[in-house]
């Protein structure tokens, strides 16, 4: 129960179906998946969770040292699988959770039956011939703005706490937690996310892997998806006709369909 509370673990979808773990990226929480949950949940049991420091994860579990590196988050993923005794689940990781999934899968190669990396980037910063899409200055700019936005950002989130009378289906609880993170924790997570270089970990991936990228993505450009595809032997690359970094929001049907058809193949 400790792990379930720590990561606000939610199990939904089809009982007895194959298990799919959905991991959100930097910025929001498990609500990111809400437009694809119904579709994938028709055939799979879904395990959703919030990374510590995000959403409704237990704030008391926060440890600035543990979560300063992606290994801390990967440890949590493995402990969730252990705690729920998940049998060979598919791990679907969005954005930085792609790297977290790669780290977890490499540490316990028999744990997952497959990986789905949604808009992954193993390294956000340009490096010689590698184009991550950002300079070190851009990342420093983000980290600085996370700090200086402290005042503006927290006050701008206030209306969300009060709820949205025009759209009651969103519910007060949801609006209060969605994308609402403690600025200090967000900074640590941002540092771990955008300063990590996990390019060398890709070659060690030994499970079937699907890479889902968007045709237009300001954070993970197509070259990065191609790089990940080239590094992971036998991986599949699917480019969605979608814009932005979050295809599960901008193109939920296509995203769910791509995940479903890949998993169907993996389970056959």
């Amino acid at each position, binding site marked *: 129960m400790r792990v379930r509370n720590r990561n606000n673990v939610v199990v939904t979808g089809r009982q007895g179906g194959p298990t799919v773990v959905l991991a959100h990226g930097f910025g929001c929480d498990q609500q990111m998946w809400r437009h694809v949950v119904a579709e994938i949940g028709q055939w799979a049991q879904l395990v959703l969770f919030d990374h510590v420091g995000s959403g409704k994860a237990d704030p008391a579990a926060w440890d600035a040292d543990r979560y300063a590196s992606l290994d801390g988050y990967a440890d949590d993923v493995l402990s969730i699988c252990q705690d729920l005794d998940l049998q060979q689940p598919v791990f679907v990781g969005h954005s930085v959770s792609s790297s977290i999934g790669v780290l977890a899968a490499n540490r316990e190669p028999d744990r997952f039956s497959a990986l789905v990396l949604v808009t992954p980037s193993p390294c956000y910063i340009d490096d010689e011939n590698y184009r991550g899409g950002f300079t070190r200055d851009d990342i420093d700019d983000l980290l600085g703005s996370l700090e200086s936005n402290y005042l503006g950002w927290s006050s701008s989130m206030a209306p969300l706490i009060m709820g949205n009378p025009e759209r009651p289906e969103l519910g007060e609880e949801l609006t209060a937690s969605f994308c609402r993170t403690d600025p200090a924790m967000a900074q640590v997570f941002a540092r771990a996310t955008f300063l990590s270089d996990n390019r060398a970990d890709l070659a060690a991936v030994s499970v079937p892997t699907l890479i889902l990228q968007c045709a237009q993505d300001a*954070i993970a450009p197509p070259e990065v998806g191609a790089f990940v595809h080239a590094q992971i032997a036998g991986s599949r690359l699917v480019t969605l006709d979608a814009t932005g970094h979050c295809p599960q929001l901008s193109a939920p049907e296509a995203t769910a369909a791509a995940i479903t058809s890949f998993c169907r193949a993996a389970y056959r």
Partner: protein
Amino acid sequence: MTATSGHDPRGQGSGDDRSAQPSEAGFPALLEDDLEDLYENAPCGHLSTLLDGTIAKINGTLLTWLGYRREELVGQRRFSDLLTGGGRIYHETHFAPILAMQGEIGGVSLELRTKDGTRMPVLVTSIVKAGSEGQPQLIRTAIFDAKMRRAYERELLDARKAAEREDERLRHLVGKLQRSLLPAVLQTPPGLDSAAYYRAASTDHVGGDFYDLFPLVDGRWGFFLGDVSGKGVEAAAVTALARYTLRAATVYDPDPAAALHNLNTVLWQEYREDARYCTVVFGILTPTTAVGGFTAIIASGGHPEPLLLRADGSIHYHPTKGRIVGAFPDSRYTNTTVVVNPGDTFLLYSDGLTEARPVGSETADGRYGAPALARFARSLAPTTAAAAVTAVTALLDTFGAGLTDDTAVLAIGAPPHRA
């Protein structure tokens, strides 16, 4: 835009009596303010984008701020292209998802990158405009110049950082001063046990409790535990005075009652105007080497009675009397004797312990109180100095926010007979 209702709260009349009632015609300047002009030259930037962020419409104000021509942006660039690198990530990871989920997002602080590369702090508000059937069509964004506000925020942030630094410095000073008033390492008389614990109610103030255990030249040991009225720097000055007066007194006259009398005189002379005084138990102990315990001569000035936890499991408060030290000019103090045998533990404490207000206290005044402490001591006895202090420390932990005053504990015990 002619007002047609006679019930207009601003009193605008119908078209017939414009001359009598104020109306738009009364403000000829408004004739120049058509909607197109209002959009183009609004005091804020306006931007409409497709759902994928592609810029579809932009007003003149924003173009001027950015330094671009309209054709360089419309149909060519996305909103996130106008942001700084960090802002772009922020937009993709926070702004766009929230907008997609909630349909609106307001007052987000971002920075635009203008054509010449300079940065412009702005506040951004966006809403998703839905079509007639509720399907999202485009995103309308209003952008406000936030240069002044950002400068102000930075000042607030700097002020907060400065305050945090000052706070840190203060805590450091308080900690240092506090440590200087307590023994760095508690010494233990040969053949006996000792342990002490101090908990300041706040890290912002120097606490007013003090204790010590120290050897005299002739094999005897002095010890005291006291509590100065008040907190902070003034209390610390009295604490220092009390502590060194007592230690100095033992050098030429190791008699507890005389030492307290001496301290009373000093405090009365020095602080009667400020009503500064203290309560203290002061003792001189002589190890009874043959038996393995000690005998202590004790005097108390208005301090809670120490506890003796016996080897046989019984406990009792050691009765003392004597007025608060420094409160009256002519207070007299009397010595009493306590005999501590092997297996006994002698426990001194300050009233932070008995005056605490634990959550769920069942006493009439909500205080922990001497009877509860006696029951607690009975559950411990027989014990050792270290175990008693550990147990009291754990007890204090359970008080939580109910612990409002500084608390000091000093235990001196005689080890049980070896078998």
